[in-house]
């Protein structure tokens, strides 16, 4: 996985959560998180701060994911999530 082989890098997963019904959102995001590869980003677009999801992720997989806010409201939140367990 050297920087030269950019085309081998896993593509980011982009998920516009606003399009998903409320009651299905968390399950779909959990599935994405579980399939996230090392160095792969999950990009989320949400209509509220996804704090509850972050607490749940931390409860299920403590310390495994890093969250970065690119935009924090007032009407749209954009975040990237990466695996932070190196495992290497």
């Amino acid at each position, binding site marked *: 996985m050297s920087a030269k082989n950019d085309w081998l890098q896993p593509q980011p997963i982009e998920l516009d959560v606003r399009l998903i019904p409320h009651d299905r959102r968390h399950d779909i995001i959990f599935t994405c998180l579980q399939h996230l590869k090392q160095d792969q980003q999950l990009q989320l677009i949400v209509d509220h701060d996804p704090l*509850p999801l972050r*607490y749940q992720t931390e409860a299920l997989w403590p310390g495994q994911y890093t969250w970065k806010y690119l935009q924090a409201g007032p009407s749209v939140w954009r975040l990237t999530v990466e695996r932070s367990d190196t495992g290497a």
Partner: protein
Amino acid sequence: MSEPLSRENSEHALVEQLVTLLIRSLRLHRDQASSGEAATLAAQAWAALRNPYPQLAERLNGTLHYLTNVRFSEEKFEEETETPAGRTLPILDVRDAPPAQRHEQILGHFAALQPGEAFIIVNDHDPKPLYYQLQAEQPGKATWEYLESGPVVWRVRLGRAT
């Protein structure tokens, strides 16, 4: 309702009762310095309940949203249920909505009903005050039928009269 409780049923009822108490105590931390820790505990309880008691876990999910002050632009109709006529009715579970928003949510959905349509309210106390409010403001417009009357959960079929 009057069938004897099996051991499994009574255990489920006990878990449900404890979850209700847990939620009530966690909700006290909203807007306090301790709200982050309360949210962490709510998430851990959610994770523990997720597989054995998915519906109770969903209530803790609601508690998490309450503790973190998430405002939804729309309420969720989370599941459907069978009616005697074989049709399904939407369920509006307001147990984890902030109390101040419960009437508003329910009245919003009532306003959207066509004559003859109905939905089911799920609440953690008797929503009778709402019934009085409806009777006072829109006399004769609402039908109100208790499907379950506590002690932990109340289910009311709220419909628009034909």
